[in-house]
């Protein structure tokens, strides 16, 4: 029996946001696409465990996140320097991850602990409810709320948002240059 086209279309429709989430986790578009591909293979192999009518994006995001986490557990070296490598990737390949105008924001995001970054993306960018984000991350709703709050507070600090001009490309350039001394 072939896969229900409606289900297939739901999967396809989620791919763009899956990629955006994967890139925010990996910081590297090639690795992110590998991760998405792996997620799709896994999901379609286990499509029976998806309950039609439930939240397809949440289901796929959960699979992707679990794959990402288990891959990280395998590569210990990366775990130890996860944030450093992430930042490094962003600096060396800004064009891979997006437009340069987001560089400062991206650099600040890279400095957040992985848990906080993930929670902020899920709620603030992917548009998941706190409940869905908690389910995806396998933690309590209160934990997600707290992570999102801390992430926002830290981002505001890092970006030193106190005036409109502070969000411009000049600061972005400075942030990238300053980031070079962080190792």
């Amino acid at each position, binding site marked *: 029996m072939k896969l229900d086209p409606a289900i297939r279309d739901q999967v396809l429709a*989620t791919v763009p946001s899956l990629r955006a989430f994967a890139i925010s986790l990996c910081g590297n578009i090639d690795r992110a696409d590998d991760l998405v591909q792996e997620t799709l293979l896994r999901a379609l192999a286990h499509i029976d465990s998806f309950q039609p009518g439930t939240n397809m994006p949440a289901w796929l995001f959960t699979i992707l996140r679990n794959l990402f986490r288990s891959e990280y557990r395998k590569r210990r070296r990366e775990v130890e320097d996860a944030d450093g490598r992430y930042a490094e990737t962003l600096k060396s390949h800004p064009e891979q991850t997006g437009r340069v105008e987001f560089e400062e924001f991206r650099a600040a995001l890279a400095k957040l602990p992985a848990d906080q970054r993930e929670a902020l993306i899920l709620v603030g960018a992917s548009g998941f409810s706190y409940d869905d984000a908690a389910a995806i991350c396998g933690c309590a709703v209160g934990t997600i709320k*707290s992570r999102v709050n801390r992430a926002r507070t830290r981002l505001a600090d890092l970006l030193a948002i106190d005036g409109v001009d502070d969000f411009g490309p000049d600061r972005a350039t400075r942030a990238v240059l300053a980031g070079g001394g962080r190792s």
Partner: protein
Amino acid sequence: MGDRGKDDAMKHRRTNLEPVEPVTERPETDDPMNRPAASSTHKPEARLGREVQARIGQQLRAMYNDVVNQGVPQHLSDLVRRLSDQDQD
């Protein structure tokens, strides 16, 4: 309900960041080390201004949607279609 989540992930218009219900810094669950000092009345600066929150949310979505707007890469679309046409167990 299930559809709502789907629509959310697709449209990326509305997110939960903006109209922040004054979620306090302090969850029931997280580590006590990070709780704000025992004052129950928050200092004004302890809570992010609406404008700042809005700007962070805006940047976040812009960055995210930059990728979303790239759509589905051909190889991933091919993969899904190929696997969908195979017999399922």
